[in-house]
């Protein structure tokens, strides 16, 4: 299979403008003749659905929650990047592009990343116009802060609730289109299959989560905006309902899955506390702007943090990375935390945590300033851990947070399946092997507000679409497949709950496909995960009502898929025998223990093709070419 990324010709800075001009347009009066299904209502989904509806397309927008406003984008805290350069500190579109491609360790496409940086400024304009109450200076201008891995202040924020405010902005635009009947909103509905007709994506099969009814929805194109697959690890900062089923169903219908091993482990999460734990809680890494990370110098030092004198503390990030200090990128911060914990210097009841200490900032700026900046995060921490972080250093530890991999898309955000578009975290396109802080919100909204409105028109104008009824054999086949899978799950009536299987999968993933990976571990994972999957299909027990609201049945279906995705993640990690960004292979590191890329061998996007349940997936490679940046070894020293 030849992967055509469809990157336009011409100088980098002119590609997107030229491409926009070259794309075919759908006449304003004809747009109402086309229909698009958007799956998911997070930043990517809500912005895509509202923007396409504003243009006049008929949009169906589907989500699993009771309201579009619940999508997990809402939980993003820290902020959103844009190249506005309001602080006059040397930022530019080029610098945002450069930082993003370097931060991603040169495993993303130059053209996509440059476009992202270009439209970043429009997102802030759009948000302000929507009435998003971004943080402001006393003079009334928008405030900026610096954020993990950046040496300029380019991050816009709304307290610690930036994701919430941006999502509610996109949601408000969406609801305006719902009121105009330009969007049909279908909530509490889960996509369980993709329907292809003549090789094109023409619809989806869903389960109504209230009545259990299996339904088909047909359209001229489908956009998947359903987020990432981080819950394959069981414990992650993703919401309980975050899942990869929609994207995985597309994979099984022929869409390629790209870079599945690229996962991001976020350095500032609240540590694990017990077996019953259902998820981990992230605290914005903006905390690293004012908090200092340290562990005791001595191994097994169990004194209370405030009893450990200054000269017995190891501020290891400041020590090892003098120029970036506590603000090194996420993967570097996470791996260093693992290092000191593995060295026996972890803190807290489990000894699997490091301190994040605000004492210096509180002395310098006053408690009030810290409260104003991070009050809600400190409150959240205190609620969970039952300690006051104004008085005692916080304990943090890395946790799975984001997945850079996802369905493969070309420059138009269309997958290899014609008519199947993929936006936001669900695609693989912009973050390479590591995503910089405050860039997820930027990408989701860039895709939805400013990319797909242009690129989908070209696809629709270039193709003709017969009307497809739900009696079509492709729909019937899909319904049968979905029903069959559910019936199988319900018929097993085994001994273990799906959560128990999920937890076991999570342990395998964290152990062998986690922060540091090696050949032996990955081979073990590739052996153990299919065994666990087999046991699941023989011994799971699922709460039995198919025709009623049944969260257990929903979860069982998603966990069945995670048991397949986990294996693909391990296979991809095994193939990529280099370290880059969030993917750290123990076999490939510098003398200083930093990630060592092998550009001659691995400067490609891996794109996996499903070949059947019992067959190995096929690997396709999209070579990455760099014409505008020089590939350097990342150094944050």
């Amino acid at each position, binding site marked *: 299979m030849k992967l055509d990324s469809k990157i336009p010709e011409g100088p980098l800075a002119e590609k997107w403008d030229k491409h926009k001009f070259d794309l075919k347009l759908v006449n304003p009066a004809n747009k109402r003749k086309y229909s698009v299904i958007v799956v998911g209502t997070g930043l990517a989904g809500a912005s895509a659905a509202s923007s396409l509806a504003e243009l006049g397309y008929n949009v169906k927008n589907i989500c699993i929650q009771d309201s579009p406003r619940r999508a997990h984008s809402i939980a993003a805290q820290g902020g959103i990047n844009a190249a506005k350069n309001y602080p006059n500190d040397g930022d530019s579109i080029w610098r945002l592009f450069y930082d993003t491609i370097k931060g991603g360790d040169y495993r993303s496409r130059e053209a996509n990343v440059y476009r992202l940086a270009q439209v970043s400024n429009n997102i802030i304009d759009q948000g302000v116009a929507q009435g998003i109450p971004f943080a402001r200076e006393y003079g009334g201008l928008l405030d900026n802060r610096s954020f993990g891995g950046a040496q300029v202040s380019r991050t816009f924020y709304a307290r610690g609730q930036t994701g919430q405010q941006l999502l509610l902005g996109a949601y408000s635009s969406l609801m305006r289109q719902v009121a105009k009947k330009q969007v049909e909103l279908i909530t509490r509905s889960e996509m369980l299959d993709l329907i292809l007709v003549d090789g094109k994506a023409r619809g989806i099969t869903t389960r109504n989560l209230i009545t259990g009814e299996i339904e088909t929805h047909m359209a001229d194109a489908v956009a998947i905006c359903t987020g990432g697959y981080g819950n394959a690890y069981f414990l992650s900062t993703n919401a309980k309902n975050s899942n990869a089923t929609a994207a995985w169903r597309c994979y099984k219908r022929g869409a390629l899955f790209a870079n599945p091993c690229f996962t991001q482990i976020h350095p500032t999460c609240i540590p694990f506390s017990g077996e019953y734990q259902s998820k981990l809680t992230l605290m914005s890494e903006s905390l690293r702007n004012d908090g200092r990370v340290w562990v005791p110098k001595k191994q097994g030092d169990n004194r209370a943090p405030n009893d450990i004198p200054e000269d017995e503390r190891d501020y290891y990030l400041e020590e090892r990375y003098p120029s970036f200090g506590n603000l090194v990128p996420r993967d570097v911060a996470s791996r260093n935390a693992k290092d000191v914990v593995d060295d026996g210097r972890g803190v807290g009841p489990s000894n699997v945590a490091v301190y994040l200490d605000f004492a210096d900032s509180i002395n310098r700026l006053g408690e009030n300033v810290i409260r104003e900046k991070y009050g809600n995060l400190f409150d959240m921490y205190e609620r*969970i851990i039952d300690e006051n972080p104004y008085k005692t250093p916080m304990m943090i530890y890395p946790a799975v947070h984001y997945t850079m991999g996802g369905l493969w898309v070309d420059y138009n955000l269309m997958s290899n399946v014609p008519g199947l578009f993929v936006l936001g975290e669900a695609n693989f396109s912009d973050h390479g092997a590591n995503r910089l802080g405050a860039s997820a919100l930027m990408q989701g909204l860039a895709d939805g507000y400013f990319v797909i409105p242009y690129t989908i028109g070209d696809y629709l104008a270039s193709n003709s679409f017969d009307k497809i009824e739900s009696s079509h054999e492709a729909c019937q086949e899909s319904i049968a497949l979905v029903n069959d899978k559910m019936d199988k799950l319900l018929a097993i009536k085994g001994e273990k709950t799906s959560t128990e299987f999920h937890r076991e999968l999570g342990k395998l993933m964290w152990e062998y496909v986690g922060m540091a990976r090696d050949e032996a571990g990955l081979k073990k994972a590739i052996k153990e995960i299919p065994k666990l999957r087999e046991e699941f299909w023989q011994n799971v027990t699922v709460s039995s009502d198919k025709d*009623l609201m049944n969260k257990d049945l929903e979860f069982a279906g998603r966990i069945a898929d995670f048991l397949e995705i986990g294996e693909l993640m391990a296979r991809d990690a095994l193939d990529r025998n280099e370290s880059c960004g969030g993917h750290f292979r123990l076999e490939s590191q510098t003398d200083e223990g930093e990630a060592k890329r092998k550009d001659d061998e691995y400067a490609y996007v891996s794109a996996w093709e499903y070949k059947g349940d019992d067959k190995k997936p096929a690997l396709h490679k999209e070579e990455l070419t760099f014409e505008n940046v020089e590939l350097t070894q990342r150094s944050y020293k």
Partner: protein
Amino acid sequence: MADMTLTLKIWRQKDRKSPGKFVSYTVENVSEHMSFLEMMDVLNEQLIKKGEDVVEFDNDCREGICGMCSLVINGRPHGQEHGTATCQLHMRKFNDGDIIVIEPWRAAAFPVLKDLTVDRTAFDRIIEAGGYTSINAGGAADSSAILVPKSDAEEAMDAASCIGCGACVAACPNASASLFTAAKISQFALLPQGQTERKRRAANMVAQMDAEGFGDCSNHAECEAVCPKEISITHIARMKREYFKAMVFDE
């Protein structure tokens, strides 16, 4: 603290049309570090193993921001902790041997779908009636073109931090959605971007709130007391002024 054994009296209701009732369950080995919802997970794991139907309750982010969780715990929406959503409530606030009564939100405009899960789409329809600025993607001016006083932006943010959970409705003796509706009207009324549609917005959102079957506000302030985001009822006062202006003065 040693692990706790608790008795839960939980509202079970098969679907929207069936009558519901309380059913008692015992949960053992509850750690003080568990969140309330993790304790509910333990119960559901037990039920699955016994081949019984799980207790349905809405939840998602478990970080207090998505607004999905919605339990009335011992008569109080989101439980006894001030400024805390159900998912952020921890079992260390309870004692061994406690009997805990768990109900869904109760309001005519929030019909029960199953057990502890209710239909809150009425909130979406209130937003649909005017909780937006009419701006299309691509049409916005530069974000620094209009200055906004910091104090206005901060107060707008106080209102905008509403998570749409509906605890305000569940706590109100009138089942009024005033705090929810006011928070959105107030956010826009405070910002320059909200000015052009100010009157229309107030009139239409209040009308939709009535149409959905929510009651009016009679100043009990129960909503403010249970709001996990501690949104102030001064926003309701602003909504009343906005509504009055919209009714008395022409567009």
